[in-house]
């Protein structure tokens, strides 16, 4: 995989709670009233994962993949959206030195979210298959300890499963840019929360003033593959307020076997 060498994945120590059972705002959760342990209404959360994944992990609902247990889990069409609109909360340490910048990255949110970090609110736009990267440099705590709360909302059109079921249920989910099997298909029963959640990796990345973004590697061939070229294009972002004089280098190492490289 592409590796950002300054990336810290946030995949442990998360808590979750149903939005209707938490009486604090995101600003309060990330300043004066952070949850401190998995005590009701908070529970240990699966991140990356979905709301239903977290509920199954905590045995709040039966595992939908056994027998007819899926029938015992209320469908979002009957419960309403708020029932599967969940808070996810965690803390992380990040202490920056001068001229360093920090991004908070979400590789996949279904379907959109309100992010609160140390009392600051950021809205993540809709769409299951898009990454989000937020420059949080100016809102990190100087002492390095940070409070993060994410309120995740389900897809706009979760639909209703007709009594006869069918491929894609009533097809309402197709109005959103999200995975379509979640209303049920010939190979799977409906997913009750429509896979709402922080379904892919969350990370923080710390860089200097200039950041490398989405390099594109392309190879071209000539003379029956004897002659090849590697074409590399990348975006660079200078977040500082002065012109950055840079040296940009690329190195290609033959990967022999697992982690043995020929340089």
């Amino acid at each position: 995989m592409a590796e950002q060498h300054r990336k810290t994945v946030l995949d442990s120590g998360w808590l979750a709670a149903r939005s209707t059972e938490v009486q604090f705002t995101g600003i309060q959760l990330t300043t004066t009233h952070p949850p401190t342990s998995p005590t009701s209404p908070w529970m240990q959360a699966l991140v990356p994962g979905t709301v239903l994944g977290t509920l199954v992990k905590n045995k709040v609902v039966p595992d939908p993949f056994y027998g007819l247990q899926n029938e015992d889990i209320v469908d979002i069409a009957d419960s309403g959206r708020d029932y599967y609109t969940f808070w996810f909360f965690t803390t992380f340490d990040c202490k920056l030195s001068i001229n360093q910048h920090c991004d908070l990255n979400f590789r996949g949110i279904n379907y959109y979210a309100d992010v609160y970090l140390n009392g600051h609110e950021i809205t993540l736009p809709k769409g299951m298959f898009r990454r989000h990267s937020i420059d949080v440099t100016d809102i990190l705590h100087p002492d390095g300890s940070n409070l993060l709360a994410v309120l995740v909302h389900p897809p706009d059109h979760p639909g209703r499963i007709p009594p006869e079921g069918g491929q894609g249920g009533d097809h309402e989910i197709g109005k959103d840019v999200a995975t379509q099997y979640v209303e049920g298909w010939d190979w799977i029963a409906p997913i009750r929360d429509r896979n709402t959640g922080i379904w892919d990796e969350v990370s923080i990345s710390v860089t200097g003033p200039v950041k490398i973004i989405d390099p594109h590697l392309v190879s071209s061939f000539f003379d029956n593959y004897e002659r090849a070229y590697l074409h590399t294009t990348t975006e660079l972002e200078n977040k500082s307020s002065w012109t950055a004089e840079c040296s940009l280098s690329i190195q290609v190492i033959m990967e022999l076997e697992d982690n043995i490289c020929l340089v």
Partner: protein
Amino acid sequence: EHVETQYLSVPANSRVQYTFPELFFYKPNLWWPNGMGKQSLYNVIINIDVKEYGESDSWSHLFGFRKIESHIDDATGGRLFKVNGEPIFIRGGNWILSDGLLRLSKKRYNADIKFHADMNLNMIRCWGGGLAERPEFYHYCDYYGLLVWQEFWITGDVDGRGDPISNPNGPLDHDLFLFCARDTVKLLRNHPSLALWVGGNEQTPPDDINTALKNDLRLHPWFETVDETNKSVGHLS
């Protein structure tokens, strides 16, 4: 010999695009699909140093030298594939996703994809009603040599077919669909196993989306070059 350093200035508070001069390789070890040869991978590392600061960022990706071509065969109407100029008989498997509740893990991807390679398959088709698969999925497809046919999020049942006909014009927000498609392409485009982007399952996306996708994903004219010896036409792999 495969190290290149360039010096440039990046203006304050700005975002620029930079292209290195191409790196030359003589007889590179090529990446081949399962059953056709080795899946040779190179580790490409990009670093950026800033004067009076030091190393500012670095990035790396495993990369495979390969050229994948495919076209619809007039005689059969089927899609024929070539890898590095060699025709390949596609033995493919359907893939929906690892887990219905999206409990995705590298360990599971490794096991599932190695299983496909052990079954002597050489392609996995990611169904449009599932996910744009994740970098961890593609990493193991790179490693075990499974070509990937990746569909975007359109299916016949939900978008314009079925009875009654549903969502004939696809999702409500076409700009959002295209934004997600472009961001997904940027996330996955460097994986050698990625063989084909497909508009949807059993259904063509709405015209505006389909046209935009075809335009965004066409071969960049810059790579349609003729070699100075006019012996061959270089192709974007």
